[in-house]
């Protein structure tokens, strides 16, 4: 209806009359018919399983036997008090989350600022920096596994060539550090989206504001801090929410690069859920982890959903 209000007044009156007529004529049944296929399949595939998982997390069950034993919150207690790998996974998720909120976002913003101006070749640079975002995380994981390969991998070869042999490592097999190389690979893939969103956000800032600030004598850093960045507030909120939600979804890249190892040191909640459920038949514990992951996601998702539904 918002479009109508922008038309001239007589058209507005006419439009209102038409809209009122259409409203009174439209049967509530027809919209449901349009919605039914999507809403039905979505409810069966996403919503119902989600609720059922929450229910299953209250049982001790191996996924096969016909009887489930109701144990209340025992699975959660076990996870938090007896399951060491759960804590490793939780810590890795926290590290991953912090890295995701800092790195792809700031790199994406930096690139967007550099590439927002149109100069010869700017769109080629945009394509190059966006490109890793279209690759599957399984592929990203495989490519980076070769880079980290201890003998023939590019990283160690470069270090040797630069005379930094002391820094060479068996990157993905060192339990102390293995999660970090995986995060670097994930960052390579994650930069494209914030860059794209920031580029879109920058397009909406009127040129005159910069000119005005310039006339006032503001340097580039002050212009960024006091003009550009405040006007990108909305974009920044979306970028942070989406990168956080995506970071908590991480799974494929860990599976492809380390499969949770060495010694479970690179497990995430998502991968540990898979291990417990499908390798160890601990369905109760697995679903409880999924619920924990869901609750973590909600912290970032609620502001995001609020934002997405704000205009309606």
């Amino acid at each position, binding site marked *: 209806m918002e479009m109508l209000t922008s038309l001239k007044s007589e058209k507005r009156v006419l439009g209102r009359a038409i809209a009122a007529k259409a409203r009174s004529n439209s049967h509530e049944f027809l919209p449901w018919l349009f919605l039914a*296929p999507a809403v039905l399949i979505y409810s069966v595939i996403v919503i119902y399983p989600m609720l059922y998982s929450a229910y299953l997390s209250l049982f001790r069950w191996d996924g096969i036997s016909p009887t489930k034993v109701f144990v209340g919150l025992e699975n959660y207690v076990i996870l938090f008090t007896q399951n060491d790998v759960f804590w490793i996974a939780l810590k890795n998720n926290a590290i991953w989350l912090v890295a995701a909120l800092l790195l792809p976002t700031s790199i994406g913003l930096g690139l967007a600022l550099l590439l927002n101006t149109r100069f010869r070749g700017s769109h080629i640079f945009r394509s190059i920096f966006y490109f890793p975002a279209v690759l599957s995380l399984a592929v990203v994981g495989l490519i980076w596994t070769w880079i980290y390969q201890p003998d023939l991998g*590019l990283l160690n070869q470069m270090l040797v060539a630069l005379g930094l042999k002391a820094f060479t490592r068996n990157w993905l097999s060192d339990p102390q550090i293995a999660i970090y190389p995986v995060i670097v690979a994930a960052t390579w893939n994650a930069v494209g989206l914030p860059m794209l969103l920031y580029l879109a956000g920058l397009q909406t800032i009127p040129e005159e504001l910069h000119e005005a600030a310039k006339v006032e004598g503001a340097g580039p850093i002050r212009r960024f801090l006091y003009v550009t960045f405040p006007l990108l507030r909305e974009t920044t909120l979306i970028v942070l929410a989406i990168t956080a939600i995506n970071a908590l979804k991480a799974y494929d890249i860990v599976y492809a690069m380390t499969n949770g190892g060495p010694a479970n040191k690179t497990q995430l909640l998502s991968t540990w859920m898979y291990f417990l459920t499908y390798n160890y038949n601990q369905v109760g514990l697995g679903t409880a*982890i999924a619920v924990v992951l869901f609750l973590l996601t909600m912290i970032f998702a609620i502001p995001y959903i609020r934002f997405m539904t704000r205009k309606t």
Partner: protein
Amino acid sequence: MSETVSKPVFSGNKSTRTALLYGGLILAALIWFTPVVTLVLTAFKDAGDFALNGAFSIPKSIRWENFSEAWQTGVQNYFWNSVIVTSIKVPAGIVLESMAAFALTHMHFKWADRIFTYILIGLIVPIQMTLVPLTLLMNALNLIDTLTGLIILYIGFGVPFGVLVMRGFFRTIPAALIEAARIDGASWFRIFYRIALPVALPAVVSLCILDGVATWNEFILAQIFLRSDENRTLPLGLVQFSTQFATQYDQLAAAVLISVVPVVLVFLFFQRYFVAGMGGALK
């Protein structure tokens, strides 16, 4: 436009600044693209060359056989499975999603906001939260280890993003246009496919591309619900390939490159739709 944000970061005269900007960007781009270059170089190398000189060197001779060997070792099979899944899922999904989005934007439906919020939940649900019940469901329906089952799951999980994008575009269609057609006596179905869909064609293309790439790349559902080698899709098949032929980097790189080529082509030819599609998701 040219004086906005980037250049003033550097001091000095204009040509120095431009040179610095280009130099910095080219260096950054080279570093950024190194993993891709490594992949391509490895894919064209023979195994001996790789073992001797590592990944990042110019191949001694171009070895096309890597591709044919990888293709015949199973990649062919994974590739066609991915083609089947993507080419059925994407159009089917878009039909459902755009119908729903149309109802939410133009049919004066009083539940529209609530249904939209309900659908948005799907964007944030960690997929792990659905796996166990879905395993039970797929088992009961005898759809484990079938491409049909996987396609149904993909359609279900695709609904939130698809509705979000299509709704963003449908909202830009003037209500007056729809009302005018109503006055002329057109049915809602007719308005949907004769007016709304054609007007939103750029959105449909954008969504096809974003969704196509996402479907082509999907891993976890394929991993859980496909069991036999002959049913595997590309990402799953590649990871499997990598654990089975861990030392055959040349063939593995060729296999990865084969899987990436369709995505690269789509990316090169339809690049602007990526931006448009993401824009639609934020409207």
